């Protein structure tokens, strides 16, 4: 871990705390947590300290990791710690692939700069790991080979797929020219299409900066006395961090209140689903926060079109009606209805539909839905025993966050090494994920949960309460834990 970096973060945190008349010790007492866990993000401190000397396996085999983002690179790092003679190749085309994506909300809220979250792939390649700066465009799982865009054929004994997902802006009518985007990398096509239209998205790093620009513009408009419509979408696909589409609502609200412009603004959230959050306790808490802050919301609305020139968002609005009596089922049917709804906006934040990259979806390793079908507990491909998947591309429920990856990569490494040794796979992923839900500038509700669909808090605190100390953790502690803990394969 980079202690210089942590010390710098701690100094900034101390400055912030002292401005509120608190020492770091006082803040920790308030939170009821230890200093180490505050810095490391809950249970991770214990894990990090006890995992300094992992058991090293002498198993051999050529491991290829397709995708060198947080999931791929952390997995590579941990494998180097756990294998005596690692033979690992990471294939990743993006120079900034390990950039800190959870910080994009903070960039969009004007708290961080884009440079605060930009990290170079080449600085995080573990020692001894071979890097191929190219994109895999073909998978041949029957012959254990992948092919890159430049035509290089790379063979493997074991394959780990960690490509992440794509942001499918082109599915939205009116934004076809934006194409598909990745969170990092060149998204100039997308930015060009969106321009200075009031339409933005925090789902790319550059887009987060653009969101902050647009937010300031329309906060100023509201401040000038003009009634201003802020509209926020949430699509009909899985998304990276289910809390992010709501975080941007809260951050916009904070900036409006700070500017004294809230009364001239209407904030409306249009999710495709019928809930604020998949975990009932967090759903209820968010609903209360929405009521408290005077937000509006309309469930079962999916953004299908944007008229940039007219500033109209078109939603597929869905509802259900009681249908006819079904004599065979001896029950009433439920009939789905839908219609197009045109909503005028000044500021439109789009959470784009999110899908598997074409090269995965159209290959033998992808499922009908595109994602890689894995055993959700072992992360092993359901058809090809020498293939594993991790992170956004893996077809596991609720698994598309950095917090999920922090649990998954340890499970994957344990299981892959067991497989290489011809042993039974010992580790199981239980669906844990975490979403530090920013509810204002200065407060976070730390939503932790797993497949039990219940809150699973790491701290002895009511998980439904919005806390300043979790804001401090989000702003100061989680990034070093991710960048220097996870990416070194230890936290």
């Amino acid at each position, binding site marked *: 871990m980079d202690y210089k970096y942590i010390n710098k973060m701690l100094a900034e945190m101390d400055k912030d705390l002292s401005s509120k008349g608190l020492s770091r010790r006082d803040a920790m007492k308030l939170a009821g947590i230890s200093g180490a866990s505050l810095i490391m993000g809950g249970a991770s401190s214990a894990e990090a300290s006890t995992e300094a000397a992992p058991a090293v396996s002498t198993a051999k085999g050529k491991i290829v990791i397709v995708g060198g983002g947080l999931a791929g690179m952390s997995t590579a790092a941990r494998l180097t710690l756990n294998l005596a003679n690692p033979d690992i190749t990471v294939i990743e085309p993006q120079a900034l692939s390990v950039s800190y994506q959870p910080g994009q909300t903070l960039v969009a809220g004007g708290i961080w700069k884009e440079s605060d979250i930009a990290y170079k792939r080449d600085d995080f390649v573990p020692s001894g790991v071979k890097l191929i700066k190219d994109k895999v465009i073909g998978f041949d799982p029957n012959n254990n080979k992948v092919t890159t865009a430049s035509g290089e054929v790379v063979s493997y004994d074991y394959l780990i797929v960690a490509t992440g997902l794509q942001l499918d802006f082109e599915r939205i009518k009116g934004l076809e020219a934006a194409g598909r985007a990745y969170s990092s990398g060149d998204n100039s096509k997308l930015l060009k299409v969106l321009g200075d239209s009031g339409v933005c998205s925090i789902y790319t790093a550059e887009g987060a900066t653009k969101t902050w620009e647009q937010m300031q513009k329309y906060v100023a408009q509201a401040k000038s006395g003009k009634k201003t419509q802020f509209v926020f979408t*949430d*699509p*009909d*696909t*899985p*998304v990276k961090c*289910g809390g992010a589409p709501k975080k941007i609502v809260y951050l916009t609200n904070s900036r409006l209140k700070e500017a004294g412009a809230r009364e001239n603004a209407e904030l409306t959230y249009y*999710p*495709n*689903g*019928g*809930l*604020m*959050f*998949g975990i009932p306790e967090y*759903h209820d808490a968010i609903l209360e926060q929405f009521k408290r802050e005077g937000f509006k919301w309309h469930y079962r609305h999916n953004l299908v079109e944007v008229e940039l020139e007219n500033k109209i968002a078109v939603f597929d609005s*869905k509802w*259900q009606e009681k*249908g006819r009596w*079904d004599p*065979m*089922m*001896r*029950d*009433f*049917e*439920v*009939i*789905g209805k839908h219609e197009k709804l045109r909503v005028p906006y000044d500021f439109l934040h789009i959470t784009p539909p999110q899908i598997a990259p074409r090269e995965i979806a159209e290959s033998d390793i992808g499922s009908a839905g595109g994602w890689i079908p894995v055993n959700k507990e072992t992360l092993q491909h359901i058809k090809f025993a020498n293939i594993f998947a991790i992170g956004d591309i893996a077809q596991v*429920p*609720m698994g598309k966050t950095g917090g999920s990856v922090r649990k998954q990569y340890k499970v994957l490494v344990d299981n892959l090494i067991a497989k290489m040794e011809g042993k039974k796979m010992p580790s199981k992923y239980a669906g844990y994920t975490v979403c530090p839900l920013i509810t204002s500038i200065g407060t976070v509700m730390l939503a932790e949960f797993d*497949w039990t669909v219940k809150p699973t808090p790491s701290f002895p605190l009511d998980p439904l309460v919005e806390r300043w100390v979790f804001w401090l953790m989000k702003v100061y502690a989680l990034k070093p834990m991710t960048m220097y803990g996870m990416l070194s394969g230890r936290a």
Partner: protein
Amino acid sequence: MQVKFEFVIYDETLDKFEQDDNVYLLELNDEQILTYNLLKDKDLYLYNWFQESEFFITWIKENVYPQSIGKKIAISVIDDILFLRFYFFKVTSGDIHYEYFKKLFDIFHEANWQDREEVGEQILERLLIKRRELIIELKEGDTKDSNSKTSK
């Protein structure tokens, strides 16, 4: 003790089930009553027990569908326990059936983004396999141990 049964007939050509509107009564002996009472709260366990029991198959072959070797059927009702959802579920079926199948097939419904129709399609996909497990094919074989009385 009499147990009420209803059946569906499977048409292999059309891959479709058709409800037999008749109700059939099967008389259970004391030992069978004990087993029945033990399993009656676990619908598929109860189904499997009947499906695997020689006395039940014999009763069907002799009393319910005589001279029907080769016929494929499935149980749709046992007393008040309905299995109709296995054969007639549609995407438009009511929420109670969705909840049942989500639990049975361990389908994780991410209700904060996922449409009901998408989950319905997943259920139908799983049912393609499950239905095959429930079908009872009436085959040639020993039918001496009926152990029961019937009425229609």
